[in-house]
């Protein structure tokens, strides 16, 4: 794939690098990279890969641009508010570099579409914000033999690894299993805006290295970054012989969606309460009101909470467990149901009888019961 005069001018600084040169730039032009998640990580990764002349870039995201995204998602500006991210991102990248082809995939990745989508790309950059998507992408990459450059962030901390099927471990070798709700996401925990800028540009760096064949990729190594201490650390990660997807006797041979949430998803001893069921419990004449424990951070609680709810942030719960009546069927509440489920598990462990989790948290309460309830 030869370079045009325009391209030679645009990529002059790459052409001057002996390690890249015209040959490397032509490989970049021929490369097809799929970016999963046009968020904090996907934004800088996409911008730098577009600027670098990556010939085909796919952007997968089914969300729309929200004002709270703009603190870190530098692919979008204020004028893009409410637009589909995949399309707004495509327009921004096309404006940055008209020499490349950008494809907007405004869809939710599912087991049913992931194979067909990945088939058109050589390499995947994962910056999604759900563990279920991370496993789906990993499994599809292993099954289709696609390299995967994966990063994740939380508050001031980031992780990065490159997985090349057949050459090292996969994401499941590192974390065999995890469920959304066990780990707080950015919306719940907050994130330093510039943090995904560091990790996303490292993902773009790894992509360019893999495409051009220069340097040593981050295979078999996990890189962690602590922004508060400005510290990078590296850990060796081995392939697991018993890995469910890349091991010797794989049990995952097709991409699969996570199990739909159902009554079986709640651990033994934890009751699940829908917003409507909680409303019925709180109705006048329904009997004694159970203790309501709101485990969100104080600033979230102050934005809006149920009048009966007491605020014990999740982090303080182990020390303040004595405040919770043991036999009254305490109900735990958070923003979307993840932290409150962890609170239920801690309460069970501390001897609280049949704690209940408000499914979907205050977000679901506002959606199904009280639309006037402000939720931070």
């Amino acid at each position, binding site marked *: 794939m030869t370079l045009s005069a325009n391209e030679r001018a645009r990529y002059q600084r790459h052409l001057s690098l002996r390690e890249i040169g015209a040959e490397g730039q032509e490989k970049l032009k021929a490369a097809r990279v799929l970016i999963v998640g046009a968020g904090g990580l996907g934004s800088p990764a996409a911008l730098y890969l577009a600027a670098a002349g990556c010939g085909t870039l796919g952007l997968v995201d089914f969300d729309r641009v929200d004002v709270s995204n703009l603190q870190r998602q530098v692919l979008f500006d204020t004028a893009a508010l409410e637009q589909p991210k995949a399309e707004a991102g495509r327009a921004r990248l096309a404006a940055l570099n008209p020499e490349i082809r950008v494809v907007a995939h405004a869809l939710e990745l599912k087991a049913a579409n992931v194979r067909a989508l990945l088939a058109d790309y050589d390499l995947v950059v994962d910056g999604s914000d759900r563990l279920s998507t991370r496993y789906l992408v990993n499994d599809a990459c292993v099954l289709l033999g696609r390299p995967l450059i994966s990063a994740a962030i939380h508050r001031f901390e980031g992780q990065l690894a490159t997985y090349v099927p057949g050459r090292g471990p996969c994401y499941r070798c590192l974390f065999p299993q995890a*469920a959304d709700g066990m780990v707080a996401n950015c919306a719940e925990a907050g994130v330093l805006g510039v943090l995904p800028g560091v990790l996303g540009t490292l993902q773009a760096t790894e992509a360019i290295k893999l495409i051009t064949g220069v340097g040593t990729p981050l295979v078999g190594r996990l890189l962690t970054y602590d922004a508060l201490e400005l510290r990078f650390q590296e850990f060796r990660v081995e392939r697991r012989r018993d890995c469910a997807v890349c091991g010797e006797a794989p049990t995952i041979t097709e991409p699969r969606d996570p199990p739909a949430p159902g009554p079986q998803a709640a651990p033994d001893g934890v009751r699940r309460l829908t917003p409507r069921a909680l409303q019925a419990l709180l109705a006048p004449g329904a009997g004694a009101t159970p203790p309501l424990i709101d485990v969100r951070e104080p600033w979230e609680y102050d934005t809006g909470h149920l009048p009966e709810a007491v605020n014990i942030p999740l982090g303080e719960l182990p020390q303040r467990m004595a405040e919770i009546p043991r036999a009254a069927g305490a109900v735990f509440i958070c923003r979307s149901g993840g932290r409150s489920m962890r609170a239920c598990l801690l309460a069970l462990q501390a001897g609280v009888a049949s704690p209940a989790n408000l499914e979907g948290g205050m977000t679901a309460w506002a959606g199904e019961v009280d639309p006037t309830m402000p939720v931070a």
Partner: protein
Amino acid sequence: MSCTVRIASPLHSYTAGASRVEGRGATLAEVLGDLEQRFPGIRFRMIDEQDRIRPHMRLFINSQEARELTTPVRGGDTVHVICALSGG
């Protein structure tokens, strides 16, 4: 035997925000038991009821992964608690 323990950010709520704490013990199990004394509830986030490391948590001693709680910890080692992160 004293070591340094670096705590993944999703568990900082147990350590009053500290990302680095001191640990004592000759094995990983002893170090985690020591942490549990001072930071109640933190061990359960890493280790399940069958004493297995939870599949979304990884423990490293210096840069090497420790898959067993019997793994020895030497004075001056750093134990790293790493958690699967979902944010993007």
